[in-house]
């Protein structure tokens, strides 16, 4: 029987394989886009019925029963991923010229969908690996070192997860979520699984999902991997793939929440394990945002920004309250759409100019007006300026942090927002305004498919910004209660209210007045645009700060002490040590002398003998 879920799951993969095998220009793009559109189409079609009737699907593969279910929560995640995936496909139609890319991009699409839809650990792990592998192959093509860094960390995460799964399997005898959940729920009272084992399983899962979500200190793969691939694909990579990590944390709550609570208890009236997650999120937000501010490369900047934004989601989930979940879930959506949009804008810029550094950019707003408009929406949304989707979700998270009585964490949110503002402002000015380098004079607007892709993500930014209730009411259904009140335009929480429509109207009126002033007010005169902004320092050759070059160098100097320590370098060193260890191991053990080899045999015999004698 062909089930809708199977179509949703495998349409991208099959389309990818077909596109790869045919490899005819034009046709492969068409097939790819169709394959990416099918899941979204089906999800939209199934939307009306999904709340009452979850759709189940299960297949037995080599003795394992893989179960998939489309329920309210998985629909939400799958829909977000499909939306970004479709945008990615449109973007790739322009930016990618290889069937190789199509194969692996669509393969990872299937992987992400599968992770969200799986209801048992075998399918979850299988598709998780598939997703990791496919995204890795996207990077491998362009940069071996970065891709291996990504893959090694991911695989360590995946294997940590596998061990955790295996331990759970050994303890509970089940691999499907429902049974595991039930057994662990019962076990919380009986305590057959010791606290130590629970801690190990929790730690392993934390590692696994932390890697994928890019939580500090496991984030080091993100900058390299996000920047060293096709930028349209990065929209999906950062927008949807990293959400798999966030989803994993949610899963942790669902499956093990009660058991973890029973094992670790509370800390300051707060679930201990959730506290850990919240702080991981908060640290990720702060560290990644600082690092993002200091980047000179657009791709690196957004890569760190992505890490930071996923940190928000973790933070929200770590609050442990339903409001926190609501905020986190909303942020999943809004981050996917604004960060996806950002990456597509970046893709357009790189495609049209071939440059990635801030110092080579400037004044592109006139040349690429539509792209600029899209970029502006993304910037507003990311910086958390109403009436964009980004504001609504951040506001919810903030409210949740306050009502959970975690002021330090709330402070991290604030700090993160401020820093986000700092880096997007630089992006906004350095790329779009100011003096245009002479070699960018004949830059053209991005091609149509890319524009479609951007529009696809920009519209939800606006719609969900103006009417956040659309999302929160669905989230209420996921969480099974009236968590966030209000109507389509108004959000009501225990501590505050946000009326998006009002804000929008105010904003529109304000903009109208400003426009009137601009048109009828003061006389404008054209002056040449130069870099006037020098941070109050005298301009010298060594200390030449402009918005395009070393803009935040003073900040970097202030943070010098902290920047000395880098997780990235630490991991590199560990890897180098492992390789040296491997070398000396094989040189010493396989030394080529058959007499040494005979000694190994004798030693084994000796061990056998001693074990027999003693």
């Amino acid at each position, binding site marked *: 029987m062909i089930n809708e879920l199977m179509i949703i799951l495998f349409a991208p993969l099959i389309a990818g394989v077909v596109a790869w095998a045919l490899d005819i220009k034009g046709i492969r793009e068409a097939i790819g886009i169709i394959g990416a559109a099918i899941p979204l189409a089906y999800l939209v079609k199934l939307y009306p019925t999904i709340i009452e009737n979850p759709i189940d699907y299960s297949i037995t593969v080599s003795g394992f029963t893989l179960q998939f279910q489309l329920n309210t929560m998985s629909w939400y995640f799958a829909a977000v991923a499909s939306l970004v995936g479709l945008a990615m496909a449109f973007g790739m139609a322009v930016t990618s010229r290889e069937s190789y890319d199509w194969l692996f991009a669509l393969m990872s699409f299937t992987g992400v969908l599968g992770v969200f839809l799986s209801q048992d650990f075998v399918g979850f792990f299988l598709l998780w690996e598939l997703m990791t592998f496919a995204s890795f192959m996207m990077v491998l093509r362009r940069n071996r070192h970065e891709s291996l860094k990504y893959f090694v960390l991911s695989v360590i995460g995946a294997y940590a997860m596998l061990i955790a799964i295996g331990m759970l399997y050994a303890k509970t005898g089940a691999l499907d979520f429902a049974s595991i959940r039930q057994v662990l729920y019962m076990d919380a009272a009986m305590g057959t699984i010791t606290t130590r084992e629970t801690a190990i399983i929790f730690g392993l899962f934390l590692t696994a999902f932390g890697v994928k979500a890019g939580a500090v200190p496991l984030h080091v793969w993100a900058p390299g991997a996000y920047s060293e691939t096709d930028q349209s694909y990065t929209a999906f990579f950062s927008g949807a793939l990293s959400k798999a990590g966030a989803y994993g944390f949610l899963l942790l709550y669902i499956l093990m929440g009660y058991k973890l609570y029973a094992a670790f208890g509370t800390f300051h009236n707060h679930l201990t394990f959730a506290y850990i997650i919240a702080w991981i999120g908060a640290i990720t937000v702060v560290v990644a945002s600082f690092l993002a501010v200091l980047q000179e490369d657009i791709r690196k900047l957004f890569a760190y920004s992505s890490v930071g934004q996923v940190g928000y989601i973790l933070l929200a989930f770590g609050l442990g309250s339903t409001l926190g979940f609501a905020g986190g879930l909303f942020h999943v959506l809004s981050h996917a759409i604004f960060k996806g949009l950002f990456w597509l804008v970046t893709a357009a810029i790189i495609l049209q100019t071939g440059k990635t550094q801030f110092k080579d950019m400037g004044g592109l707003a006139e040349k690429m007006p539509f792209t600029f408009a899209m970029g502006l929406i993304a910037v507003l949304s990311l910086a958390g300026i109403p009436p964009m989707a980004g504001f609504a979700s951040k506001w919810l998270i903030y409210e949740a942090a306050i009502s959970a009585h975690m002021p330090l964490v709330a402070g991290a949110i604030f700090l993160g927002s401020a820093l986000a503002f700092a880096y997007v402002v630089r992006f906004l000015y350095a790329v779009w305004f100011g003096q245009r380098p002479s070699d960018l004079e004949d830059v053209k607007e991005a091609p149509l498919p890319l524009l479609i892709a951007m529009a696809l993500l920009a519209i939800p930014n606006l719609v969900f910004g103006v009417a956040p209730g659309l999302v929160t009411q669905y989230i209420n259904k996921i969480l099974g209660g009236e968590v966030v009140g209000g109507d389509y335009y108004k959000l009501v929480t225990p501590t505050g209210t946000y009326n998006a429509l009002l804000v929008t109207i105010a904003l529109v009126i304000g903009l109208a007045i400003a426009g009137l002033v601009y048109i009828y007010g003061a006389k404008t005169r054209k002056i040449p645009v130069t870099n006037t902004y020098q941070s109050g320092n005298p301009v010298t050759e060594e200390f030449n700060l402009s918005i395009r070059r070393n803009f935040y160098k003073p900040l970097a100097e202030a943070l010098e002490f902290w920047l000395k320590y880098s997780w990235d370098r630490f991991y590199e060193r560990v890897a180098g040590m492992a390789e040296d260890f491997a070398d000396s191991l094989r040189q010493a053990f396989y030394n080529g002398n058959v007499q040494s080899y005979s000694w190994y045999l*004798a*030693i084994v015999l*000796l061990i*056998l*003998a001693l074990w*027999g*004698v003693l």
Partner: protein
Amino acid sequence: MLKRALAIITLLIIGYWLAQGLAGVPFGEDRMLVAQYYLDHVKEQTGAVNTVTAVVVNYRGFDTLGEVTVLFIASTGVGALLWRKKRERTAKTEGSIVLTTGTRLLAPFIMLFGAYIFIHGHLTPGGGFPGGATIATAFLLLYMAFTVYEIPHKTFEKVEGAVGMAYVLVGLIGLAIGGYFLYDWIWQDWGFGVDNVGRLLSGGFIPVIYTIIGLKVGTELSGIIDNMLKEEVSE
């Protein structure tokens, strides 16, 4: 020196361990299980008097097939490894007069003796392997005595292959006649020499197989000797 000392200590411990294991298998006690069956039934089931031969060729014929194969591999392997485009014997000195005359006189008899050994395998100690080795010894003597002597190794190779095939064919005939591989159809079905147990014309296919083995072992071992004695000569 340290190495020797360590080796000796290691080996002593291993030896002690082995001895401990062997203590559970006391020397000289009757622990026969399957062997007793062999001893009890060997005469009526195989017609051989020498139980070892019966076990080797008949009851555990598979082992012997494998054993022949091992020797065949060795001869093939040595041939493959020492194969060169053109090789000749390079011995300089002829054997002493005692050796040459002795060899001339003895070689045929040694071969005959070898043949005797393997033909009487089911009656007396010995059999295909020592018989074949004896034959090879004759060739060895010939090689040592004469600098130019060479066995006709092409023919020997062919004989080697042919007798090997003959062995398997005997087994396959058993499969065809009696339904079992290596089935002793001569004894079991034809009952050839049933009244003759203890004399030459008995023992089912044992003499046949031992003849095959004897020829095979003889040719193979002489082939190995031949291969090892010849050296590459540049042209």
